[in-house]
């Protein structure tokens, strides 16, 4: 017994393939092997493996690489007249997965739908051309012209075509012809080959600071940001930070254009805020701590009384755009202090103050809209635990891949169910150390309402009673809310709804297409409650969906306008591949009402999106594409 154990250990020391494995393999081929035979075979296999490994290393050395590749090993096998192993040529690391109970480890090998792949039109075109570039690294052996050991920032030099494209696009966007601009923006939004130009565009956009006197140019640049953000083929990476700072500039800075009261910089700020939230929701995961940074800078502006009111306005709409949680954490605690200042402005009826007062009213309106939604969402979130019981089983069947479709508006996804699974939402909970809202404790809803009521008085109260549609959203009416929530939660039982892009429709009123400030617009309440009703009843949602698409197209294709399916969430979004890596069959992504025939047009539209995996630039060398069929 002891000796056999020793032998066993010995064998393991010298061999990596155990007899058990050999036996398993033999079994799978339908052969029974004795212990001794398996042992001998195992030893021989190990020897051959080691031999092949040793000879494969010379292919690595001669290729002047440090990393041994599968290709090297295959060459060694081929030269020793052994069949090469196919299917492992991808340059990315292959993740090993384990099955706990079987002690089985395997490489995940998903099936690939060749038809989809073949018909996909967005297969990344080959990377830039191989080229030689020379630079003088060391002059006279000492003075090096560039800092040592750094990586060139833009390795891909531009080809002539790209350069031309870049010039034409920037000229079109910043030029006079609105039609041309539209075309350029549209192309920027859908072109799959402009990855190399990204740094250049980001640079152009960072020029916002130099055109702060020209609202038109600022607007165009913001549209450019939008197009870039919406381009599904671009991996923004760390450029997100740069884009965000440009957008923040438009939101917060007292622009030169704001001096003239005739300039409608408010719309620009609204639009920028909208854009900010869009960037954050779609690309926030690319830069860690982005949420905190944004909140911090908004808070800083808000708490700085020296700043002009237009900056404050920007901070408020920015917070509003980031969601009710942001409002609750930053705006609400600051409100008492801020109110005093605002009140002073509003109470000054002198002529000289007229302009400032008008600005003050804008801020007032913005705050009102923000806190209104805060209260509504808070009420809704309070109602959820009650409803949790009913949706618990739904959640469990969905597993971790399906995210709840809920919580319309700009708030983070509902915390009780999915918070833990969400990277972005967890920013809210687990803030970086030293953040001022670390010690923040939620204020109970009634207390919040009464405090806000003390500021706004009836102008707040009236907003909760005049909403049309079904829902009668009294601040505290959990039972009603929970009732109306039932339906959508049923809709979410669709197992394949991936994480939904936040619905931005509540912000319709501050979209740049509409005139006037948000607070002046009486449709605010209606719009938001329309939005609410959209989620509660699939019928009534169409109008707002349509509107939202107009203002801010989120998906590359939108649900058909003719049919009732409403919960047709994008499948081309960036979130899609983030967690579950793979493509999921798009058919199931569609409408909860399975009986509904899918219009063929929508179907064909979807095809291009199929080949897509999470982050195109980083992932495109992935093995999926090694099967790429030349068409």
């Amino acid at each position: 017994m002891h000796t056999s154990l020793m032998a066993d250990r010995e064998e393991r020391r010298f061999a990596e393939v155990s007899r058990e494995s050999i036996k398993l393999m033999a079994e799978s081929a339908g052969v029974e092997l004795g212990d001794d035979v398996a042992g001998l075979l195992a030893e021989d296999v190990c020897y051959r493996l080691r031999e092949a490994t040793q000879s494969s290393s010379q292919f690595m050395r001669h290729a002047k690489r440090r990393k041994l590749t599968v290709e090297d090993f295959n060459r060694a096998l081929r030269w020793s007249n052994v069949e090469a192993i196919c299917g492992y040529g991808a340059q990315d690391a292959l993740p090993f997965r384990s099955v706990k109970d079987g002690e089985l480890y395997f490489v995940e090998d998903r099936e690939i739908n060749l038809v989809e792949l073949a018909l996909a039109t967005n297969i990344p075109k080959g990377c830039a051309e191989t080229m030689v570039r020379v630079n003088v690294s060391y002059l006279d052996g000492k003075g090096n012209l560039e800092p040592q050991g750094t990586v060139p920032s833009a390795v891909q030099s531009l080809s002539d075509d790209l350069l031309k494209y870049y010039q034409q696009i920037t000229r079109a966007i910043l030029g006079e012809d609105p039609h041309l601009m539209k075309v350029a923006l549209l192309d920027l939004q859908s072109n799959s080959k402009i990855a190399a130009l990204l740094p250049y565009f980001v640079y152009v956009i960072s020029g916002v600071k130099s055109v702060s006197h020209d609202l038109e140019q600022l607007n165009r640049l913001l549209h450019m940001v939008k197009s870039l953000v919406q381009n599904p083929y671009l991996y923004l990476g760390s450029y997100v930070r740069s884009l965000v700072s440009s957008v923040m500039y438009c939101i917060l800075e007292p622009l030169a254009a704001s001096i003239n009261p005739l300039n409608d910089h408010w719309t620009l700020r609204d639009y920028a805020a909208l854009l900010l939230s869009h960037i954050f929701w779609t690309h926030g995961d690319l830069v860690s701590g982005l949420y905190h940074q944004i909140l911090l800078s908004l808070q800083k502006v808000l708490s700085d009384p020296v700043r002009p009111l237009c900056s404050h306005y920007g901070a408020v709409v920015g917070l509003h755009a980031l969601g009710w949680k942001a409002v609750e954490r930053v705006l609400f605690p600051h409100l008492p202090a801020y109110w005093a200042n605002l009140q002073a402005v509003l109470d000054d009826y002198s002529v000289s103050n007229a302009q400032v007062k008008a600005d003050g009213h804008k801020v007032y309106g913005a705050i009102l809209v923000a806190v209104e939604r805060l209260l509504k969402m808070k009420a809704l979130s309070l109602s959820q635990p009650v409803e949790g019981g009913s949706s618990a089983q739904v959640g469990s069947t969905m597993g971790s891949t399906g995210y709840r479709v809920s919580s319309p508006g700009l708030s983070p996804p509902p915390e009780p169910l999915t918070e833990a699974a969400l990277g972005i939402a967890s920013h809210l909970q687990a803030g970086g150390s030293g953040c001022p809202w670390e010690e923040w404790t939620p204020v109970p809803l009634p207390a919040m309402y009464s405090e806000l009521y003390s500021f706004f008085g009836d102008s707040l109260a009236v907003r909760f009673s005049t909403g049309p549609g079904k829902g009668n959203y009294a601040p505290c009416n959990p039972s009603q809310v929970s009732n109306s929530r039932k339906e959508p939660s049923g809709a979410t039982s669709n197992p394949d709804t991936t994480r939904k892009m936040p619905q931005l429709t509540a912000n319709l009123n501050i979209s740049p297409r509409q005139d006037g400030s948000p607070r002046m617009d009486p449709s605010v309440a209606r719009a938001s409650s329309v939005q609410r009703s959209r989620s509660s009843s699939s019928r009534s949602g169409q109008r707002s969906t349509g509107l939202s698409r107009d203002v801010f197209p989120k998906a590359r294709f939108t649900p058909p306008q003719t049919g009732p399916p409403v919960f047709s969430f994008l499948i081309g979004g960036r979130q899609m591949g983030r967690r579950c890596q793979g493509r999921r069959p798009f058919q199931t992504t569609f409408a909860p009402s399975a009986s509904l025939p899918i219009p063929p047009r929508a179907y064909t539209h979807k095809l291009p999106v199929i080949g897509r995996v999470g982050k195109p630039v980083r992932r495109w060398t992935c093995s999926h594409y090694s099967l790429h069929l030349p068409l």
Partner: protein
Amino acid sequence: IRLPVFSSAHAHFICKMAAVQGGLVDAVEEKTIKSEPVADATANNSANDARAPSSSPGSGVSPGVNKPAAGAAEDQQTLLAVLQFLRKNNLSESVEILRREAGLPEDSLDQKGGDSTGTGLGGPEADGRTDAGSLLSRVTVSSSAPSKAVAEDQPDVNVVLSAYSQQGDPALYEVYYSGLKKFIETVLDCHRAELSQVFYPLFVHMYLELVYNNHENKAKAFFEKFSGDQECYYQDDLRVLCSLTKKEHMRGNETLLDFRTSKFVLRISRDSYQLLKRHLQERQNNQIWNIIQEHLYIDIFDGMPRSKGQIDAMSGSLAGEAKREANKAKVYYGLLKEPEIELPLDDEDEEAENEEGKPKKKKPKKDNMGSKSKKQDPNAPSQTRIPLPELKDSDKLDKIMNMKEATKRIRLGPDNLPSICFYSFLNAYQGLTAVDLTDDSSLIAGGFADSTVRVWSVTPKKLRKVKSAADLNMIDKESDDVLERIMDEKTASESKILYGHSGPVYGISFSPDRNYLLSSSEDGTIRLWSLQTFTCLVGYKGHNYPVWDTQFSPHGYYFVSGGHDRVARLWATDHYQPLRMFSGHLADITCTRFHPNSNYVVTGSSDRTIRLWDVLNGNCVRIFTGHKGPIHALAFSPNGKFLASGATDGRVLLWDIGHGLMVGELKGHTDTIYSLRFSRDSEILASGSMDNTVRLWDATKAFDLETDDFTAATGHIHLQDNSQELLLGSYMTKSTPVIHLHFTRRNLLLAAGGYNP
């Protein structure tokens, strides 16, 4: 005496050709080729017995030279066997040709097996003929071992291994070994280092004997117990060894066959050797004594035993050190006389334009030429030692350009370091495996793992193809600018891609006249590309395994290649078969370089030795040991006197070719050195490595040493550890391994590598 060498090699080729003609080269068929000479050799065994019984073909340095008679007889037998094989396969024409070339009488085959001395008489006359013939008509295999080296000609495995069959008690192996170990540990300090050299070869052979005789567990235990004692630089070999635990695995393991077929060479002083011998005889330790007798070659010298440092500097190769006499042959390392070139008139005009240059320039040039032409370097080979191609007009122009540039050359030195330009290959996702630059630095070529070769022009002048044949007919051939007119302007581009290989391109080399490009690949071929038409001209097949490196001779026409089959080959561009085969390395040849005078080639191998071969007769004239890893970079100094080598161990070693001695060690790199280059005037040595640095070394100082007669005679070197003093600078790249270095004619250093983000 040369005859057998020559003819057997030819027979070898014909044999191969026959095999190719026969279609599938079946292993069985091959065996018949091999086994017959063996069978025939039995009649010849007396000759073989005259030598050490184990000195099988291919061992060490050309035994044929030492034992001409035996070699001749053996080769005669081989030849006869080949002839017989050919006849059996009805290749009568080949038989006829071979017979005629070998100078064998017509009836030689019939009296095969009879008295072979009769046939040997054909020798002298053939000898005279071959000597008279041109270089190209003579084909020799370097070491007279005809049947070794190429993979298909490996010595019969059974014969090789059977030497292990005699055995003592396996249980006593450990006792023997530890007994010897104890003894060596107790001898005087001065002897201990020398005697410790015995450990490694003894250990390996004892282990293999145990394995061969199926004492698997004993072998494992033996390995376990003593492998830790071995020098760290044998780690790689030990790793191979430890995976080998079955007799069945011993067949086909090349490392093992190498170890077995070649004697491990040790240099030991007479005193130490006597000590060891006396000990073993006293103990009646026959087991160990037998191994030492049979598998080790002990090169005994008189005088003081060497120190540990001296031994470590020279050891590390797969088969021990080089024998002293291996490095005694005369090497003509001097440079060939530069051809006298009349300065054409237009050149004068040009100088007239260049006013300030006029008075000065002319003189140094004349001096330069004069000094070169007058002084006949005693160490230089004669101008006609090997036939070199005639200079074309364009070559002369290029030489003039070169001289002009040389006058503008920067004198480098420790206080005047070169500027470095880095050529980065961007987006080279397909894997950059080799780079070369033309001598005038106008073209750069890259070999890639995706089998392509890409050529770029690094000057504003674009690359153009020659027009098609039809278009060429249209042009006026009398016009002055006909050379310009034949180029197709439409094809002008910055780079061209050459498709043809079916495996990664590991070696690449421009011809000196920039008309051709050579590339060697994993697919076993070397291809010659025209840089006029950008098409493949020839595919040289000969290496049947990956060809790791190739290089053009500095005078063009010839090129050398080496690869996995352990044979370096010398080719001429207009011959589809090699002119010379240099065999002797015990593992892959990893890099090959031509001596500046084209009379020698040097090869580096993964057996961790460097060998210098004479192009004229194919002899191995130098064996340099001391590297502890496969050699990946070699460079001759421009004056031809010195050689620098770099290996995976991150060290650069410097060698004096004339004396056959290691003269320096440059430590500093932390990863494999892939490139070495001397500045144009030999003042600076640049080394490029996988560790993303270029380092500059003071070559003037490194080679500034007097070799005394004693060192030259004994080969005992004293290296001083002065790497830090010699290191002039270390320059980081931008995360790019440096795989090629090049000094322009004005001494600007160019480096190249593929950027891998």
